[in-house]
C-alpha cells in the first residue's frame, strides 16, 4: 500500500511470516521505486534489514521503520538510511555500518556497532556483550553509539575510533561491565555513573571529560532525548567519565624483533 | 631507486678499459649523468640533446656540435680546452669534467656504437628507458 506522507512516498509492508530474503527484496524494490519511508509491520526475527539497498538512490533520505523485533545483523553494512526499531534489536545491530542511523526503542544485543566506521546507533535501553567492538573512524566518518542503560562485558574491545556513550539510565547501582576497552587504541568511551575502575582494560586511561568532550556528548545526548524523551540537561549533568586509549599502538612492545 | 648503477655503467662505457673493475681501479672514470636525490625522490639527469643547445652556443672552440641527423649533441674532447663555459651554460647541469692531467668537459654522447646506452642497460628498474622522441608521438597520433 502506497501513500504520501509529508510529501515523501511511504510504503507499508506486512512482514508477518515473510522470509528475510523476500522481505529485504521488497524493501529494496520499494526504495528503488522511489519510496522514502518504509513501514515494516510484524517483523519477527528477519535478518539483514537495510543491508541490500546500498545501490538505491538518495539513501540519506530513506527511513525504515520497523515494528516488532528485527533479526540479527540489522543494518549490517548500512550505508545511509535511517532505521527506527519500535522494539529491540538482536545481535549484530549495525555490523560494519558505514553511514546512516539506527534508533532502537528497546535494547540491543551483543556486538552492536561491531566494526562500524560511520553513522550513529541510539539504543534506548541496555545492550549486550562486546558492544562497539572494533569500532573505527576515518576522516569524516566517525561512528557514534549511544546506549541508554548499560552494557555487558568487553564494551569497546579493540576500539579503534568513534564514540561510545553509555548513559546508565534506569540501572540499579554501578555499571557491571568488566574488561571495558581491552585492546582499545582509538576513539573515546563516555560512561555516565559509577563503574569499577579496576575492571577497565589496562590499555585504557580514565579522565574527566573536558568542555569539548562534553559538547560532543551533549550533541548525542540531545539526539537520544529527541528520540526517546527525557531531559537532556539531567543526563548531561552526569557525572561522566571519559575512557581513552593510552596508546595508539597497544601491542607495539609485544614482539621480539 | 638511487642505486646509481647507471653511473657505474656510464663510467665503464666511457673509460679506457671498458671493464668494470679495471676501469674503476686503474682510472678515475667520470659519469656523464648524475643521479639527483631528495628523500625518496631520485632521478638521473643527463644531457637533453636540446634543439638549441646552450652549451654549443657557448663553446668558444667549436668542440660541441649537434648532429643534424640524430639530433645528438656531441663534445669533441680533442677540441675542448677546458674553459668550462659549457658547464656554466647548461641549464640542466648535465656537463661534467674528466679527471686526469688535462681535464676536459664531458657529457652524454648516447653511447655511439651501442644499441642502448650503457646507463639504460645498467638500470635494474627500468627507470631509464630509451625512447625516440618523435616517433612515439607520431605513433600516438596514429593510434588516436
Amino acid at each position, binding site marked *: 500500500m502506497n501513500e504520501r506522507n509529508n510529501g515523501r512516498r511511504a510504503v507499508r509492508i506486512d512482514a508477518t511470516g515473510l522470509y528475510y530474503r523476500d522481505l529485504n527484496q521488497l524493501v529494496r524494490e520499494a526504495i528503488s521505486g522511489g519510496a522514502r519511508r518504509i513501514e515494516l509491520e510484524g517483523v519477527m526475527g528477519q535478518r539483514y534489514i537495510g543491508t541490500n539497498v546500498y545501490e538505491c538512490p538518495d539513501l540519506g533520505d530513506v527511513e525504515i521503520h520497523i515494528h516488532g523485533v528485527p533479526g540479527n545483523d540489522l543494518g549490517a553494512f548500512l550505508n545511509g538510511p535511517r532505521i527506527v526499531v519500535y*522494539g529491540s534489536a538482536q545481535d549484530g545491530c549495525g555490523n560494519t555500518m558505514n553511514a546512516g542511523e539506527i534508533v532502537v526503542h528497546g535494547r540491543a544485543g551483543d556486538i552492536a556497532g561491531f566494526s562500524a566506521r560511520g553513522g550513529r546507533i541510539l539504543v534506548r535501553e541496555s545492550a549486550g556483550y562486546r558492544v562497539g567492538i572494533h569500532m573505527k573512524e576515518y576522516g569524516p566518518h566517525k561512528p557514534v553509539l549511544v546506549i541508554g542503560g548499560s552494557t555487558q562485558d568487553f564494551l569497546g574491545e579493540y576500539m579503534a575510533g568513534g564514540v561510545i556513550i553509555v548513559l546508565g539510565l534506569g540501572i540499579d547501582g554501578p555499571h557491571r561491565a568488566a574488561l571495558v576497552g581491552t585492546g582499545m587504541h582509538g576513539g573515546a568511551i563516555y560512561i555516565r555513573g559509577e563503574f569499577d575502575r579496576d575492571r577497565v582494560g589496562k590499555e585504557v586511561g580514565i579522565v574527566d571529560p573536558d568542555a569539548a568532550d562534553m559538547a560532543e556528548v551533549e550533541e548525542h545526548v540531545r539526539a537520544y532525548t529527541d528520540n526517546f524523551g527525557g531531559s537532556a540537561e539531567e543526563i548531561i549533568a552526569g557525572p561522566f567519565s571519559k575512557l581513552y586509549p593510552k596508546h595508539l599502538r597497544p601491542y607495539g612492545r609485544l614482539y621480539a624483533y | 631507486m638511487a642505486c646509481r648503477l647507471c653511473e657505474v655503467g656510464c663510467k665503464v662505457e666511457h673509460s679506457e678499459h671498458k671493464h668494470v673493475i679495471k676501469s674503476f681501479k686503474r682510472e678515475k672514470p667520470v659519469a656523464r649523468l648524475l643521479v639527483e636525490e631528495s628523500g625518496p625522490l631520485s632521478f638521473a639527469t643527463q644531457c637533453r640533446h636540446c634543439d638549441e643547445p646552450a652549451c654549443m652556443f657557448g663553446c668558444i672552440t667549436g668542440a660541441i656540435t649537434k648532429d643534424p641527423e640524430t639530433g645528438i649533441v656531441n663534445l669533441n674532447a680533442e677540441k675542448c680546452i677546458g674553459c668550462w663555459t659549457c658547464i656554466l651554460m647548461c641549464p640542466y647541469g648535465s656537463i661534467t669534467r674528466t679527471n686526469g692531467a688535462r681535464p676536459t668537459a664531458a657529457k652524454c654522447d648516447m653511447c655511439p656504437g651501442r644499441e642502448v646506452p650503457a646507463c639504460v642497460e645498467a638500470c635494474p628498474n627500468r627507470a631509464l628507458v630509451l625512447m625516440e622522441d618523435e616517433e612515439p608521438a607520431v605513433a600516438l597520433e596514429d593510434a588516436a
Partner: protein
Amino acid sequence: MRNIEALNNPFGDAKVISNCSIFGMMDRTGRRFSGRDISRAIANMHDRGNGLGGGLAVYGIYPEFADHYALHIMFTSAQGRKATEAILAANFQISRDEDLPTQPTAEIVNPPLVLRYFVKPTHSRLEGLSEDDFVVRKVMEINTSVEDSFVFSSGKNMGVFKGVGFPEQIAHYFCLEDYEGYLWTAHGRFPTNSQAWWGGAHPFSLLDWTVVHNGEISSYGINRRYLEMFGYHCTMHTDTEVITYAVDLLMRKQGLPVEIFADIVSAKLWTDIDRMDPESRQLRSALRQVYGSMLLNGPFSVIIAHEGEMIGLTDRVRLRPMVAAAAGPMLFLSSEEAAIRLVSPEVDRIWVPQGGEPVVGRLECTSEAPKSDQPLAA
C-alpha cells in the same frame, strides 16, 4: 546401540561438531500447555539450524505414569528391538509399551521405529543400586552393546522427542501439539556433517535430565577423559553428551547446587577470584583446583532441565547468545529475542544473562527473580 559410533560419527572424527538454536519455556506454576508455541518459537530461528537435527524435551507429559520411567527407544532393525525387549523384560516390569504416535510427512525421511515403554525396575535385579542408577546402567547397556537400538529418553513423567529434520518438523512428526507439559525445551541443530543420525539430535538426556546446547566446547578432550574416570562412556563424541554427563555427575550424583555447577563449568576468572572476599575466594579457588578438568572452555549456551527446574547457562565470557524473559508465571530462554516475542509479545521483563551466571526457573517459585539479571524496562 553397539554401532552407535559408526552412526553418529561415520568419519571417525575426534569430535562431532555442531551448533544451533535453543529455546526453553516453563510455567512455574506447573500449568501444562501444548507444544504448539515452542514449535513456532524454534521455527522462527530456522536459519540457525540446517535441518539435520531437531528435538524437544517436555516435562509433565505422562501424569498417569508419573512413577514409571518412560523409555523412548528407537530401533533400526527388528533384531535390535527383539534384543532390547529381552533386556527390558528381564529387568523391568513393563506397564505399557506402544509406538510413539507419529504423523509422517515428506520432510521426514527414513525415520526409525520409535516406541515408548513405561517401566519400573524389577527389585530383585537392583543389586543394591538405586533405581535411578539401575536405569542409567541399563540404558548404557542397551546403548553401547545392543545393535540397532537407542534409548533417547529415560526419565519419569517427561519425554524427549528428536530426529533428523528441522525441529518444527520433528515436533509435527511426533504430534507434539497433542502433548501438554509445564516445561519445554527445543533445539535446532546445525551439524557440520550431513550423515545425521536420529540419536545424535538434541536434547541429550539421562534419566530426566536433558540438555540442549549451542556452541562448541574446545576443552572437550579433557572434559571427556575426566568423566570417563567416573564410568561415563562418551559414545556420541559430542560436547553436548559431555555436558549431560557433567550435569549428571556434579548435580545428580554429587548433589552440587546449580550455582556451584555454574561456577565449575563457567569458572570465574582468576582476576575476579583474586578480588573476592577471602571466603568466596577460597571456595572459587577450590572449585577451580578440584574441578579444573570440568571447566567447559569455549563458546556454549545451554538449557538444562529436569523435573521442576529449567536452567539457562552460558560460558564465562558469553560467546553464545541467550536471552531470558519472564511473563507472569512463564520463564523463557532463547537464542534470539524474536522467538520469545513471537509467542509472548508482552513480557514483564526481558534480559540478557551475564556470562557464566545461571538463570533458574523452579516450579512454584514464581516470585523468585533470577539473580543474575540486569533489570531492564520491558
